[in-house]
């Protein structure tokens, strides 16, 4: 098989233009370069953050401010703040997102499903700073009665301590974050839900299952790994979201589990956005170092999510 092709390539005919070969090499080289640029960019993010932030891990204790002595002490409350807001967001967004995905994939007739999907995409198109503005100026005030109600009735749980009068609490930030991560979780779970084999569904219905039983018996088992990774991608988005948290919360460093108070720690991203202005070289190094921590954290979460998706796709292809 190889011999004849080699022969043809050795003796170019008139119609096989030589210039085409050169153009091909240039063009494929360009395409390869673009692909490598992407890899280089991702590596560059890590390298430049590492160079700039390396010294931020071990500054003298006064750089880390009045609340912490070491880098670990500085970043730990921020990590707690990041995860508090993100987990509140997930608790609210995940059931909603799965429900909407089911509406689009299984419940609504086609003429309803398309506009529903479009409206959810609109949620993704709204800039984060507008969410922040809405959360800070409007939603926070509207949620004050809810804060008071939670404190009054569930105050025995340490999460719901003394509420903040302005409503600008981690709970509010979490609710805004939930709206922001809703579209991505919906989009991915919608995709995996609609990929359930039609025959499985119809077999379940033919055995007399109601629609909900059909979904529980065929759709969920089939989509389980896709749902897990959708949640993780949502988590990755929530961890790195900056503006909504920055604008709703003010900075606090007190370690507390009270999700209704303002003084609870803010998130890593929000802290960077609030502090970068001081532009003192030492603090900037520390901020870049916290950014590196955030980058690695979201990278790991996304990496795991994509790996789970990829694994399930390979299993289904078999």
């Amino acid at each position, binding site marked *: 098989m190889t011999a004849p092709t080699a022969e043809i390539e050795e003796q170019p005919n008139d119609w096989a233009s030589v210039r085409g070969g050169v153009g091909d090499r240039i063009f494929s080289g360009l395409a390869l370069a673009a692909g490598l640029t*992407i890899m280089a960019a991702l590596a560059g993010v890590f390298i430049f953050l590492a160079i700039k932030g390396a010294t931020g891990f071990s500054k003298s204790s006064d750089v880390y401010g009045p609340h912490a002595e070491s880098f670990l002490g500085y970043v730990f409350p921020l990590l707690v703040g990041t995860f508090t807001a993100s987990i509140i967001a997930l608790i609210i967004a995940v059931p909603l997102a799965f429900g909407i995905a089911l509406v689009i994939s299984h419940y609504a007739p086609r003429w309803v499903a398309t506009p529903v999907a479009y409206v959810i995409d609109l949620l993704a198109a709204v800039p984060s700073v507008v969410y922040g503005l809405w959360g800070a100026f409007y939603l926070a005030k509207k949620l004050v009665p809810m804060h008071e109600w939670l404190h009054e009735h569930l105050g025995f749980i340490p999460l719901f301590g003394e509420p903040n009068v302005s409503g600008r609490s981690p709970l509010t930030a979490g609710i805004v974050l939930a709206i922001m991560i809703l579209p991505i979780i919906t989009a991915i779970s919608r995709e995996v839900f609609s990929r359930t084999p039609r025959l499985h569904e119809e077999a379940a219905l033919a055995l007399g299952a109601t629609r909900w039983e059909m979904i529980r018996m065929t759709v969920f088992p089939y989509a389980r790994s896709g749902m897990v990774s959708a949640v993780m991608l949502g988590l990755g988005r929530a961890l790195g979201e900056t503006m909504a948290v920055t604008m709703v919360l003010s900075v606090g460093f007190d370690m507390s589990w009270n999700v209704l108070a303002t003084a609870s720690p803010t998130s890593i991203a929000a802290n960077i956005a609030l502090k970068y202005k001081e532009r003192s070289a030492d603090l900037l190094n520390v901020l870049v170092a916290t950014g590196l921590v955030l980058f690695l954290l979201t990278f790991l979460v996304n990496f795991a999510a994509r790996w789970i998706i990829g694994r399930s796709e390979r299993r289904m292809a078999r």
Partner: protein
Amino acid sequence: MNHPATTLEQAPAERMHIPLTHPRLPQRAEWIVAGIAAAFGALLLVLGVPTVGAAILAGIAFLVVLPVWSLAVEGRRGATDRLMTGLIWTTFVVAIVPLASLLWRVIDQGAGRIDGTFLSYSFFKTQIDQPVGIYHAIIGTLLVTLGAALISVPVGVMAAVYLVEYGKKNKLAKAITFLVDVMTGIPSIVAGLFAFALFTLIFGPAYVSGFGGSVALALLMIPIVVRATEEMLMLVPDELREAAYALGTPKWKTIVRIVLPTALGGILTGITLATSRVIGETAPLLLIAGATDRTNMNPFDGAMTTLPVLIYGQNLRGDAPAEAIAWGAAFILILIVMVLNLAARIVGKIFAPKKG
């Protein structure tokens, strides 16, 4: 089972009693209950319950009455099904509420602030009584986003060409695909820190410029462009490529003249959507593009305000005029994003390959 004789005798008698159909609620049961719930809500409204509370209570009434009725007639399984159907539709309604509230708020608060001077003046005052506007931020947004598009479109489209046309699922292509997927999850503030670290290491610690912002945004935009282009290129039928090869067309010319034009509509849609996604980014620009009151036309030198950064700045000030400006700017920003989204759809329709 132990007494086959008796069961055999009894079986026919029992079988006679098995109904062939299950009792069901009337077909319009949902509408009947919805009517009852609406009436209940209206009654609450008359009794002085606030609108939001009445709507929520009416919704809960619907979610309770229908399953209970179903439990009485259809049994446990039917009731569960009806409850879950109700809950799943509720999720959609719940998600619509914040979107509607946000859009209404932005239009209500923002539209009134928009006029000629708001769009044509900057914050920089040459006279004491000069009106302020957001002209400088609109220009900044357009320049920074244009820069990001100029960087990310060639890289993104060519990378997608490599993945689909040249890579053909080899190890490198697989690695790039995976990294692009992971890259979509990079937090925007990390992209900003990257641009900040890169440019301050090269040009010194006080460096700010619109171009730096473009680089940060490009990092966020490239993966979206790659994914959209890749998907479109894979939709181009192989017959077209093979027909071109059969005519002796070199591969690069096939790609440039046949494959890319066929996929053009989808690619343009993807690029426009990617642009609308990054045009509202704030955090990276805060770090590297800075903020200024003047109109800056040079993206390579000096701070450059964009609409999102301006909104954030006004939010920090927090007084009433600043809040009004913030809502006005938010209105313009959402308008730009919506126009881009609409344009993406129209462009996709216009350039869609002709059928038949």
